[in-house]
């Protein structure tokens, strides 16, 4: 079959839609209240779980307040309200073994049914007076060991992101596919300058058109995602600004093409422009955002999803998604190319 790759593209998109949307998230901790605790207090926290099953094997539930990698306080009382709510009681000592007036703690809950879940830095303990020697004496260190891990096909749970972690399959691959398609486009532009075959210019035009379309989808989906994680559709973040500039440069490619009468001149000048546009893409999308502070993962002061958050289950969806969107893009590019060839033939007659 000649068009197998189009069918493959559709199947991959179907796969990423189904698996990407239907796979549940891991268990997590939504919130713990009150978030402000005091020393010398028997603190009872109301903890809300996400996708949790606290009532399953509830006598084996364990919880800690972690101060750092070695020191933690264990919960003395655990009252399970329902699957999504649990009340934890922690005896906070009168003095902490640290010389800070305010110390942040990480809540850790371990359940044989759900595995271990954390609320990183979600709680603060205020010390009325500081005495590290008394703090050291009073400290009863709880050993955190034999944590459970849930064996299931799940996506990671991340606070703030929650279910939007799935956008990794619908936003990020747009940019990857755009990059692949624009690279193919610039290869044809270079080939046109080398061999002067007008069909290479048409191929470059078709591919660049689809690349720009994928870029627009990327920026729109990114803005929607940003609204619910960063707070605004457009935060004037360096990553957002630079991608907008990159897309405007590619938009100029089509304005340029529209402003020439002579087809040969048009093809030559737009091929040269495309090389410049492509050369600006990597600095704009990847280098400049890495140099300054950005909200975007992978940019300055912010690690990429790939290094920490993109676990093996996510890779099973994320990697095919890049191929899927690329194939769909190539399909559209092929239709644009065939339309352009027809127009060319009409002009020849």
């Amino acid at each position, binding site marked *: 079959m000649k068009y197998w790759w189009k069918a493959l593209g559709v199947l991959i998109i179907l796969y990423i839609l189904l698996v990407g949307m239907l796979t549940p998230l891991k268990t997590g901790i939504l919130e713990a209240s009150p978030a402000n605790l005091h020393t010398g207090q028997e603190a009872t926290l109301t903890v809300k779980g*996400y996708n949790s099953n606290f009532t399953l094997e509830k006598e084996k539930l364990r919880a800690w307040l972690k101060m750092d990698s070695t020191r933690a306080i264990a919960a003395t009382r655990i009252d399970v309200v329902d699957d999504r709510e649990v009340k934890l009681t922690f005896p906070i000592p009168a003095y902490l073994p640290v010389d800070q007036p305010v110390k942040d703690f990480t809540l850790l809950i371990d359940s044989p049914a759900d595995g271990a879940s954390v609320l990183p830095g979600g709680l603060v303990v205020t010390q009325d007076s500081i005495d590290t020697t008394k703090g050291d004496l009073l400290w009863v260190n709880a050993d955190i060991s034999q944590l459970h891990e849930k064996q299931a096909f799940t996506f990671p749970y991340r606070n703030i992101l*929650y*279910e939007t972690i799935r956008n990794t399959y*619908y936003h990020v691959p747009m940019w990857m596919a755009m990059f692949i398609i624009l690279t193919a486009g610039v290869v044809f532009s270079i080939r046109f300058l080398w061999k002067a075959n007008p069909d290479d210019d048409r191929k470059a035009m078709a591919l660049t058109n689809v690349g720009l379309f994928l870029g627009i*989808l990327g920026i*729109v989906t990114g803005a929607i995602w940003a*609204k619910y994680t960063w707070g605004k559709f457009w935060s004037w973040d360096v990553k957002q600004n630079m991608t907008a500039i990159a897309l405007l440069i590619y938009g100029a490619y089509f304005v340029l093409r529209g402003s020439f009468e002579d087809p040969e001149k048009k093809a030559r000048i737009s091929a040269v422009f495309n090389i410049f546009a492509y050369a600006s893409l990597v600095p704009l999308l990847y280098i400049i955002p890495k140099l300054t502070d950005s909200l975007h993962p992978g940019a300055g002061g912010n690690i990429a999803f790939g290094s920490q958050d993109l676990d093996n289950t996510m890779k099973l969806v994320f990697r095919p998604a890049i191929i899927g969107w690329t194939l769909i893009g190539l399909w559209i590019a092929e239709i644009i190319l065939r*339309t352009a060839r027809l*127009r060319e033939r*009409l002009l020849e007659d």
Partner: protein
Amino acid sequence: MDRKQFNGLNMLKATKKASTTLALSLFPFSFLLAQEDTDFLRSMGKMYVVVAVLAAIFIGIVIYLVYLDRKLTKLEDQIKNHE
């Protein structure tokens, strides 16, 4: 009225109708977007943000298809006039 004009008029009507439908169907969304914290898109672990992203992709593909369709129609008309 010749065929080409007729087509153009129909297209205009269809576009008007489509854009009105789109605006009306998106209207309930717009006021959901305006609310903070307790709004619909933030419910269920922000699941509807993913739905909104998928809807945006779908609308984007449809707009792109309409654009390509119109280019092809123009070309068909040129071929027809040529004959």
